């Protein structure tokens, strides 16, 4: 098991630069013009990011700029995005910052930390309606992460180290 993981890690590092263009292409496809660098969506707008049925593996992470454990684990998601792009892994950061903080906190944070993965802001105040749609297991605490490929789906209400995240992502590839 460990051998397999080490093998994938080595393979992907070499190919990171090649696949970067694919990722960018996909990003532009999802963002419609005029939405700005970080589109703001309600749950109906978020749902397509949670239900794509193709051969890509999606890692959807719920976070906020004020959430310390979220900020701490973001570089691990960025690394997964870079190292596993060839295996069609796509990371999506869903910000739960209050919408009035988009320009003052979220966008500056993304720029300062040079976040490469896709970022969207979820503006949907009725959390009791949409939290169970993301996962029945979710109490609502963040960080929380959905990892899915086609119909296979896992939910995590927890923080990750890089190794832990890599283990979960590679288990579903």
């Amino acid at each position: 098991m460990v051998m397999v993981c080490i093998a994938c890690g080595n393979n992907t590092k070499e190919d990171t630069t090649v696949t970067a263009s694919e990722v960018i292409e996909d990003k532009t496809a999802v963002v419609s013009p005029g939405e700005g660098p970080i589109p703001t969506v309600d749950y109906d707008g978020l749902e397509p990011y949670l239900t794509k049925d193709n051969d890509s593996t999606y890692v959807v992470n719920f976070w906020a700029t004020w959430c310390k454990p979220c900020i701490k684990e973001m570089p691990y998601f960025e690394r997964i995005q870079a190292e596993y792009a060839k295996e069609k892994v796509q990371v999506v950061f869903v910000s739960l910052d209050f919408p009035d903080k988009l320009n003052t906190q979220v966008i500056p944070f993304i720029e300062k930390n040079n976040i490469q993965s896709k970022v969207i802001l979820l503006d949907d105040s009725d959390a009791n309606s949409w939290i169970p749609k993301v996962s029945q297991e979710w109490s609502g605490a963040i960080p929380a992460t959905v990892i899915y490929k086609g119909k296979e789906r896992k939910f995590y209400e927890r923080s990750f180290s890089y190794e832990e995240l890599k283990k979960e992502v590679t288990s579903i590839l």
Partner: protein
Amino acid sequence: MKKRYLSIVLFLALVSVAVLSSFKSIQPAAVSNGYTIGDVATDFKLKNVDGKMVSLSEYKDAKGFIVIFTCNTCPYAVASEDRINALDKEYKSKGFPVIAINPNNPEVQPDDTFAKMQEKAKEKQFTFPYLYDESQSIFAKYGATKTPHVYLLQKEKGKHIVKYIGAIDDNVRDASAVKVPFLANAVDELLAGKEVSVKETKAIGCSVKQ
């Protein structure tokens, strides 16, 4: 013959490892799940911002309690402060006082120290006890995963029965846009001698800092 014996021993060893490891994985999950509706909630003795220890058992006349795990720092907790004060003012006289508990470890979240709790309580003129779960044992027993996280308890034959778990209402960001005040509705139903109709709700919150 020896080989067969060895393979049986090996097999038994494997089985016992499998059994033991499955126990290991079940136990923490059972603890972290905490209370569900109908469970008996534990009493506690925790330090209030005024330095005195507070227990549920001191409230002889209370019909129940609005226990809210909250903290100084989480934007969702901060957005709820005025509402928590209002809930206490409304329901303390009716027999359901608010008891707020900070579950966070200040070593992880430096703005959640006891001193900062005292400042917060003074600044926001909290009308309710704001307790420090110093050993971080009470939130774990209740199963609170985040701040704010509400447990509505009703006294029944001297026991504190969990009647509602979840959010204060359906719009944490904007009190004026609330459509359904889940918690107030639940307390009103208990006061009217009815069963709580919406027993559990979900809300975004900051994970408890351990």
